[in-house]
């Protein structure tokens, strides 16, 4: 049928659940801003057709000088995020099941999926993938930070580091695209990071196990 009729109840009950503290939100957005700046400045030096992006940073030499420092800030900021969230991102059996039903996930048919805790398997993979790639990016980035670490490693290791840094960066950018798109696609998600709270319905739909535990904690008080 082409026309769908939706009958809404007169009164919709709405609840709100706290998802991120103010400090977690600030922490996240510092990391995110650094990531965007690193992507722009990194891609500027990655391919000649994107060199024009150096204009955003005041020219090529400035871009070269700023990029590693922004990286240092990002790693510091992400380290705090890591400490906050690593425990919640440990893999469990529901995540494996979620992965096997990835078809339902991309179709948005979440009623077929297991009830989930604070994070689903996709979010966990974004978390661990980013963590891993940031270690690689940090290590390879320090080595090719010629201004301060010139001659730290042999020239061949240096060349390998440049190649590795590029590959890891591409991987990280791909992961972030997934991360950003998931936030856009799943409505009501972005407010978790901008306001700290999500609706109960959002939690019920996407992270029911987490909602149950939040409600239970509330009841215990």
């Amino acid at each position, binding site marked *: 049928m082409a026309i769908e009729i939706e009958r*809404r*109840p007169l*009164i*919709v*009950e*709405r*609840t709100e659940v706290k998802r991120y503290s103010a400090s977690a939100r600030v922490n996240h957005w510092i990391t995110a801003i650094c990531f965007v700046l690193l992507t722009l400045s990194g891609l500027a*030096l*990655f*391919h*000649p*057709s*994107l*060199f024009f992006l*150096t204009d955003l940073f005041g*020219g*090529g*030499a400035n*871009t*070269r*000088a700023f990029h590693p420092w922004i990286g240092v800030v990002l790693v510091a900021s992400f380290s705090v995020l890591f400490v906050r969230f690593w425990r919640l991102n440990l893999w469990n059996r529901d995540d494996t099941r979620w992965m096997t039903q990835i078809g339902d996930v*991309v*179709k*948005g048919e*979440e009623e077929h999926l297991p009830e989930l805790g604070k994070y689903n398997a996709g979010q966990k993979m974004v978390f661990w993938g980013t963590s891993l790639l940031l270690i690689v990016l940090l290590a390879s980035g320090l080595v*090719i930070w*010629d*201004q301060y670490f*010139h001659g730290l490693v042999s*020239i*061949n290791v*240096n*060349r390998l580091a*440049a*190649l590795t840094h*590029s590959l890891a960066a*591409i991987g990280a*950018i*791909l992961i972030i*695209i*997934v991360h950003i*798109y998931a936030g*856009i*696609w*799943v*409505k*009501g998600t972005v407010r978790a990071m901008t306001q700290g709270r999500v*609706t*109960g*319905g*959002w*939690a*019920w*739909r996407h992270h029911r196990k987490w*909602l*149950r535990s939040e*409600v*239970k904690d*509330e*009841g215990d008080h």
Partner: protein
Amino acid sequence: MASYQSLDIKRRSASTSTPPTVRSTGLEVAKLIDVSKCIGCKACQSACLEWNNLKEEVGVNTGVYDNPHDLTPNSWTLMRFSEWDNPDNGNFEWLIRKDGCMHCADPGCLKACPSPGAIVQYTNGIVDFVSENCIGCAYCVKGCPFNIPRISQVDRKAYKCTLCSDRVSVGMGPACAKACPTAAIMFGTKEDMKDQAAQRIVDLKSRGFANAGLYDPQGVGGTHVMYVLHHLDKPEIYAGLPKDPQISPLVSAWKGGAKLLALGAIAFAAVGAFFHHTIVGPNRVTDTDEANAADLAEEANGAEPTPETRTL
């Protein structure tokens, strides 16, 4: 330095546009360094400093003749002294090689450089750094198979031998060649220098250097600075001159066509996400979800749920 006009540019770093080809390329130039004629006087080093108005710091003697100890942002050429016992005849040989940019036909520095026009190759074969475009990233150092470019800690620019492109552009030879008292450094067209080298090699062979030959490594497409070596079979004995220099495969992989593949993957992911949204539509929370959540909360604390918003 940029002493030529754009019509003379054959290749330009980090540039995808085609260089001008309408003018015939003319002659390729080359510097021929005849190691067998070098007496180690360092006049070439002095001439280089003088012509380019460079000042090298006063260093410390560590018991070898090399002075300074390595190429620096101020010393674009350096005599490297090697002492070698020839196992075939027991002779002690003092091998003195004038080190500096080789001006490769396939320059690794240019290939690695991310800044458009910071490194150019002229139609005559000279590879030149255009300092105003240099961003100081040191990628040229990674690209170079001969370990030549040096980055200044003062101004973060890369420096190396220009083959006196400013002198050559007005019909003069490089300062080092002019200063050399034994004509161990010669300058001319690449063909003439090869002919000159061939004569020298015949002479050296007649005097017992059976492996004498011209160092013009084809792994980098040949060079515009060439050596006559008494022992071409063992270039490493000349202070580590590489036997078969090539742009590192790591640099080729880093700077190769895979870059477009990577950008393609990023574009594919972004476009793919857009079309996913177009096909599947937004993943929305339904009123039923909200009601279920409210019921859950109500159940847990036994209180009346407070509706925040009303939708009619």
